[in-house]
């Protein structure tokens, strides 16, 4: 399926992958230099969503549909980790 796609779609997927990867690296700046802990959590949340975008674009580039499932599972893990870190920051423990 990856052989008969037009040239402009292939170029768009490649450019989208470059943008999503670079944006993931730029969000790492906020994780490292963020003044407070919620800044770092927001940066990690943005990294999670960008990695989901990278997985979806990779599914489009290779024509393999199960990378969509990979992206969905990454989104679930990102949501759970965000809620867990926020609870840890405020309450001091995750499960009381």
């Amino acid at each position, binding site marked *: 399926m990856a052989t008969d796609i*037009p040239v402009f779609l292939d170029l768009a997927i490649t450019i*989208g992958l470059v943008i999503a990867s670079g944006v993931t690296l730029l969000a790492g700046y906020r994780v490292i230099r963020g003044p407070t802990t919620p800044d770092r959590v927001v940066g990690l949340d943005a990294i999670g969503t960008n990695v989901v975008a990278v997985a979806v674009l990779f599914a489009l580039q290779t024509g393999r549909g199960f990378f969509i499932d990979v992206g969905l599972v990454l989104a679930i893990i990102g949501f759970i980790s965000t809620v867990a870190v926020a609870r840890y920051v405020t309450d001091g423990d995750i499960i009381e």
Partner: protein
Amino acid sequence: MNTIHALIVTVLIAIGSGFLLVGTIGLLRFPDVYNRMHATSKATTLGAASLFLAGAVYFGPQEVGGAGLTSLVGIVFLFLTVPTGAHVISQAAERMGVAFHGDASWPDDPPDREQ
């Protein structure tokens, strides 16, 4: 795949990449954590949802394994969970005492604020 199909996928990829770029610029340049959370939760959600929609259009409903329909489930999941996560983080930041940028402040006696 024909040209119209590929053109729709290309436009959706362009919209999604643009939203991801704008959201990360907001994450880097806004002054405090509440503004940054606003930027990432709106723009990044729309970008990832647009890319999921591109996946749904690309694979279609006939694909073996159901990748197109999984993409639609991903859109619903993102629109449910990302605002919830942003709300939880902002509540944590407010309880930690993270101040606003500039001279903005919380209201004095809000009626529905958690003690």
